[in-house]
């Protein structure tokens, strides 16, 4: 009896182990194959000698010696060429602007949403996520029609006799910033709302009872308590906007250099795969720290709720 029980136990442990391996192994393998390995390929190509579009092996064996050839000229070019250096600066600048503006608009928005009557909150939340479900490409395109020289805004202002000549808004830093804020605002609002709606309101009452003004309560209690929401939202906005392609392509202009668009052009227009790879590696280097912060946040809180 006890032996058969033991055997049962062993068999159960084995099947559980097998199940465990499947559950972890399949998605793990898939991600390594389609995420890590491809990036290693990019890393390799960025430092390979190229002949046309053929890449030579990094390691070669000749005359009994193993040779390792690494070409760093792409990276040297990327770090000295003034256009590239300008592009990094302007990508960081636009991504930072975008994050700060989204925070300035999104924080009060999420705060007022979270403090609305409980029965209308689901509707308010749905109204924020609905544009998020609609095509991002089309929402960016919509701003072309609004900001164009002959667009809705200019036509309206002329019709109201506020201006005589159309204001140049398209293909400037203004049109690009407004497009970025528009596209990324829900990413800021959703994690902030998820955080603020869970907040223990008794803490705020306590601060009031102890004589703090509403303004002081907000800065000393509410904001520090929502720190994780602020970090999550900021990373969800900052990291993808660093590599944004569609918005600079449709709304940006010659003055709005973005690294994602440069990568695209190196690849599709110049057909320079090695240079495009080097740009990709550099971009990963630039977002590595924010990525680590985001990852730590996700691990701490179990993910962005409400997305």
């Amino acid at each position, binding site marked *: 009896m006890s032996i058969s029980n033991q055997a049962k136990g062993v068999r159960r442990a084995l099947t559980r182990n097998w199940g465990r391996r499947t559950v972890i192994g399949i998605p793990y393998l898939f991600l390594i194959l389609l*995420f890590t390995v491809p990036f290693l390929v990019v890393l390799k190509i960025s430092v390979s000698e190229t002949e046309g579009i053929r890449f030579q092996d990094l390691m070669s064996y000749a005359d009994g010696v193993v040779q390792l050839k690494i070409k760093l000229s792409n990276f040297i070019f990327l770090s000295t060429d003034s256009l590239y250096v300008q592009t990094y600066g302007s990508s960081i600048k636009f991504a930072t602007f975008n994050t700060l503006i989204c925070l300035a608009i999104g924080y009060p928005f999420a705060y007022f949403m979270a403090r609305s009557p409980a029965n209308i909150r689901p509707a308010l939340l749905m109204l924020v996520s609905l544009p998020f479900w609609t095509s991002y490409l089309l929402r960016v395109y919509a701003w072309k029609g609004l900001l164009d020289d002959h667009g809705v805004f200019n036509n309206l202002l002329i019709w109201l006799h506020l201006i005589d000549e159309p204001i140049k808004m398209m293909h400037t830093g203004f049109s690009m910033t407004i497009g970025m804020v528009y596209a990324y605002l829900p990413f800021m609002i959703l994690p902030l709302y998820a955080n603020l709606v869970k907040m223990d309101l008794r803490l705020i009452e306590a601060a009031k009872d102890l004589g703090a003004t509403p303004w002081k309560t907000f800065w000393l209690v509410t904001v520090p308590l929502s720190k994780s929401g602020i970090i999550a939202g900021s990373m969800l906005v900052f990291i993808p906007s660093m590599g944004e392609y569609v918005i600079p392509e449709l709304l940006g202009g010659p003055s709005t250099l973005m690294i994602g668009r440069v990568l695209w052009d190196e690849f599709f227009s110049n057909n320079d795969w090695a240079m495009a790879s080097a740009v990709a590696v550099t971009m990963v280097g630039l977002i590595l720290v924010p990525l680590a912060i985001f990852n730590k946040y996700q691990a701490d809180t179990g993910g962005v709720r409400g997305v």
Partner: protein
Amino acid sequence: MTSRFGKAWLIAGYIFLYLPILTLIVFSFNDSKMVTLWGGFTFKWYGVIANDTEVVDAFILSLKVALMSASASVLLGTLAAFAMVRYKNFWGRTAFAAHINAPLVVPEVITGLSLLLFFVLCERLFGWPDRGILTIWAGHTSVGMAYAAVVIQSRLLEMDKSLEEAAMDLGSKPFQVFYLITLPMIAQSMLAAWLLTFTLSLDDVVSTAFLSGPGSTTLPIVILSRARLGLNPTVNAIATITVAVVSIGVFAGSLWLSRQETRRAAEQAAAYREGMGLAVAA
């Protein structure tokens, strides 16, 4: 509680979020060569896109890819969510978590480029795969499964584990427990994840541009190539149809979810009353 200022802020925010979408819709019914000048009401742009084979073919391909990648994303995402929530220590768990979180934020130009170069390498080594629907599917799935994992993970974390334990104690096999207890409890989040990954795939343009080959053009690629050249009323018509379909889908979905929620609450209350009745009788 909400002050007048708060209300004004919310209203202004919603106007900002919805104004561009509304103008897109309004100007899709515009009978004028000037895209932003009103020239009367018309349905003609809808007729134009219905007869535009480029648009129709691209739309069909987009649908195929989205169906395939949403289904695969939910399958893989469910496994990944289970791995994260149920197994607290296994070799490489931190790396696994990073692998799930990274695709949510890594710019698509990077994932698109790296997958393409990987597939080119594979093609040189093994003669497979050609660029087309398969490579697009792989790209969408690798991002989609991360989104699906996050959505399902948060449901699993909220879930009461004691129900599964009770089923185990009553002698159910692990597979039975999963099928009879766990699956019905996470089914809603799986549906939400499916819808989300479906729309993400339907909408994706950057990584698709890298991964599509000749003859495999999806709808967003067609839209991007037209939008680049300037304002185009056919794009507005496509946009209006998308917005209509998505709004109806999301409305119906959330209505269904809230019905389910009320029904479950009612059933729980009924079960509780019955339990109380039994206790009193005893």
